[in-house]
């Protein structure tokens, strides 16, 4: 029996941990795509939309809505990791239990792992399933977490796809060594870079680390031969990243590097909050704000334009 704490995955070029494979993804690049969500992120944004992707380890998740309170898991628990209450079960995911067996027993899959390990062959087989759709402009998108966090795996996938003629996009924070970035970039066809907050101190507060490395990597990419592959994105988080100063600073920074840079402002997505509920983690907003209205979005676009951005990506 192993506790989850001990089940640290091997990060090798032969396998990696994936917390979702979304087929028919239509928002992460051209055409119809298969998006691979690689687990683990060196950052820790308080608003993260995929909080299950931050932790490197595989975790047990519980969907209360699906639970029929049959108690099979409680009976199988040998170390008190699961208790029955009138409101469903209570579980302590860090307690040592035979979680594989317990999850096998759960008849509804209310208890399930948030991710699973794939070998390169397995993941390429998954990707190959939608080959017929890639022919008409589609491809694969690597996302996360931070997809470059499991660098060897991400690199192997990108290289393999390139060899098969599959278009590869990536959604990255660029929180990675420059050497590694240089190594993978020839295999990427489209690079979405998240630049969330320009101010280093605030970046530390809300994103969980400084932004020096990120800015340096952006500077490298936007002045390299790969600059046309790049789209810079900022998620508009009310009060945190969606401030005039921040958008202005980001716009200036990137347009000074490359006057033709493409920039996309992503509207706030309130749906992420639900994920925190089933992860049993606190979310950055008690009162979930609404997404920005069309006219508010327009004013952010205008702000970006007046600070040097020529190409705003609006979906």
């Amino acid at each position: 029996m192993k506790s989850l704490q001990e089940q640290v995955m091997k990060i090798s070029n032969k396998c990696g941990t994936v917390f979702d494979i979304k087929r028919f993804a239509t928002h992460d690049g051209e055409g119809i795509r298969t998006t691979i969500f690689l687990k683990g992120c060196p950052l820790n944004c308080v608003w993260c939309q995929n909080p299950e992707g931050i932790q490197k380890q595989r975790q047990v998740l519980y969907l209360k809505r699906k639970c029929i309170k049959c108690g099979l898991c409680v009976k199988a628990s040998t170390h008190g990791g699961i208790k029955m209450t009138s409101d469903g079960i209570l579980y302590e995911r860090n307690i040592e239990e035979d979680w594989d067996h317990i999850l096998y027993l759960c008849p509804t899959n209310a208890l399930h792992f948030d991710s699973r390990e794939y070998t390169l062959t397995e993941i390429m087989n998954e990707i190959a399933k939608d080959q017929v759709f890639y022919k008409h402009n589609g491809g694969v998108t690597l996302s996360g977490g931070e997809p470059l966090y499991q660098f060897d795996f991400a690199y192997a996938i990108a290289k393999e796809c390139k060899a098969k003629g599959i278009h590869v996009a990536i959604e990255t924070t660029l929180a990675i060594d420059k050497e590694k970035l240089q190594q993978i970039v020839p295999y990427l066809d489209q690079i979405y870079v998240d630049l969330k907050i320009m101010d280093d101190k605030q970046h530390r507060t809300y994103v969980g680390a400084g932004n020096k490395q990120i800015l340096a990597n952006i500077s490298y990419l936007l002045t390299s031969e790969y600059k046309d592959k790049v789209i810079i994105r900022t998620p508009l988080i009310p009060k945190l990243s969606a401030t005039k100063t921040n958008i202005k600073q980001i716009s200036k920074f990137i347009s000074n590097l490359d006057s033709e840079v493409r920039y996309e402002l992503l509207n706030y997505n309130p749906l992420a909050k639900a994920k925190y509920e089933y992860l049993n983690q606190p979310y950055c907003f008690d009162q979930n704000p609404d997404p920005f209205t069309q006219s508010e979005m327009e004013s952010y676009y205008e702000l970006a334009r007046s600070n040097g951005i020529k190409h705003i990506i609006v979906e």
Partner: protein
Amino acid sequence: MELKQSSRIAILKEKMLSQKRYVSIEQAKIITDVYKRNENKPMILKRALALKEALEYIEIGIEPEEQIVGNRTKGVRSGVVFPEGGCSWVDRELETLPKRPQDKFHVHPEDIQTFREVILPYWQGKSLEDVIAYRGGEQITAISKVAKINQTDHAQGHICPNCETWLEKGPAILKAEALAKIDSAPAEQKDFYESIVIVMDGAIMFMQRYRDLLKETASRAENKGYREDLLNLSGICDRLSKYPAQSFHEAVQSVWFLFVILQMESNASSFSPGRMDKFLYPYYRNDIDHHIIDDQQALELIESIWLKFNQIVYLRNKSGAKYFAGFPIGFNIAIGGLDEKGEAYENELSYLFLKAQEHLGLPQPNLSLRLNHKTSDKLLKASIHVVAKGSGMPQFFNDECIVPGMIDLGIEKKDAMDYAIVGCVELTTQGNNLGWSDSAMFNFNKALELTLNHGTCLITNQKLAPDFGGLEIYDTYEALEIAFEKTIDFYMEQMIACCEIVEKAHIDILPSPFLSSVIDNCMEKGVDVTAGGAKYNLNGIQMIQVANLADSLAALKKLVYEEKRIQRKALLNALQTNFENNEIMRQILLNKVDKYGNDVEWVDTLGITWAKKFRNKLRSFKNYRGGVYHTGMYTVSAHVPMGENVGASPDGRFSQTPLADGGMSAVYGRDTKGPTAVFKSVSRIDNDLTTNGGLLNMKFLPTFFKHDTGIDKFSSFLRSFVDLKIPHVQFNVVCKEDLLAAQEHPEQYRSLTIRVAGYTAYFTELAGELQNEIIARTSYEDI
């Protein structure tokens, strides 16, 4: 220039929708009277005379501002009682028609009396329904839970007449041709030609009655423009009664007369125009080239006939209304496709038809786009724009798999390339084929139930089939398969026998001379279409429902036989008690094994294997007209009543709940890997299994189409659909809130149409149960 819907079309549409639907017995009285006066004449002559008198005497009317005239009753959307088909059910259900859950009709009280005193007594024992009941009623009922035999109380329909022949000849020339044949014809064919002459006389009179009515109305019209319109239309009717169609307006009017008369003869579902953009094009081109009309006027004429297609509905019995809810009448029109050389076909009319659909958004015609590798981006995207409006149309068919499938069936290549669709999704060649598409529905899931439960029905405990064993007896999956095959064979043989009884009764009771005049080879051979006069004579059986079958077999294979997680006896017991106190087991069946529709090959092929066996065995039989039996995978709305016949199943489905919808679709809610996975799963269904038609439903929310990038992605998606050789797909574009609101305030959503299965119906006119079912179907958000 952006083409607009004219105000008169908008007015006519509103007027049509606001009219109440009534049952009409007017034609039934005429038919009964003619039969009484001609007792000793051969059936085909009685039928011809009855049609002729109906054409001569049925009350006709015109609506102000109509550009295309004609209907089989004076009111629109009447439910016509057709005694030759069946009266017994009408007698049983007359009082409940206004109150029944699906497809209500009002009934005039005096008609009830006339029906019972005059019509019913004459037809008892004579109608198709009664003859079939006498010859094989017990047999048909005995197998009905597994093999439901259709077309037992109405004419067959499901035919594309040869519209080109009709346009190029018209009733006068067709009559002359029949007259020329009579003298030299052998005795047994004389009646056939004689009957053609009679019905063409009727058709001529019918057109001339409209001519006279229009002229007479014109004489009273005060507005000069209106008067000229009426006189113009009167002239068109006059010319059509004597000559072939010349102008575009004449051609459109002529097509409509054809379909009205076909309905008056047969009162059947699904006479379909087929490739109307192709056969109307010469008339359109000529009028445009000679500046007789412009596109705006052409569009108005198209929208006029589009409205007309909604004015004939089909009165089914209570059970039929459940299986085919929303009175689909199946005026299917196919646009695009291939030309004779195998190149992509499209023309200006293809786009005008799409525009008409976009403007009107009504359930009829059932607009279909034939796609292939060469289809232009322009046509594809124009279609997606119309799909995005949410009427569920056009639906998409795939030449790349349908054409080879038809050739494999023995159809000549040129006919296969020119295929069209009848009714919902039934495939046919045009103008030369009695396809008998909806012969029977074979419920694999009921057959599996009987195999598992010793031949005994789980719902009624009745012994229905031989006991080839039971789940607790079959100690291997292979043993189960052997017994399942025996059960299927048992029912297949009886089904064939029943189909023959039905076909034979149609030959005896419902010869159809008017229809025969527009189906290739009937006139040449002097043989009625029901008796095998057509060039092609197919018979189509639907296999119900491969998705549930795959899910049930996958659960049995993996959880029962491989993992032994569930004991055979315990499962059988759970099925017998509809999972009472067995929710844990049911959840295991639902969640611990892969399901059809998620691109998991071993599960997807489990159901398909049986479909193949079934189809191959079926091909060893010949139908009563000498043609082949083939298979389809579509249910229309029958997945609900078919599900009511099936007890609890090993896929975790509760007793009597609906089966998967569509025909090739996954069980709703079980396709969790998204649309590309659904496409991949469905693409595993071999093309020769769906030569009679396949049906795949998908639902998208409107947000997907909000931007051009969404339209582009959708078009890539459909290109992949072509590559994957999937025969059919249709899309509902609505959000859940729309549907809930429509349930709440039906009056505000009167024209909200939704694809039920192979056709589109008014959402608010569907039974509540079916509405809920549609809401529950999987929808793909803009993920």
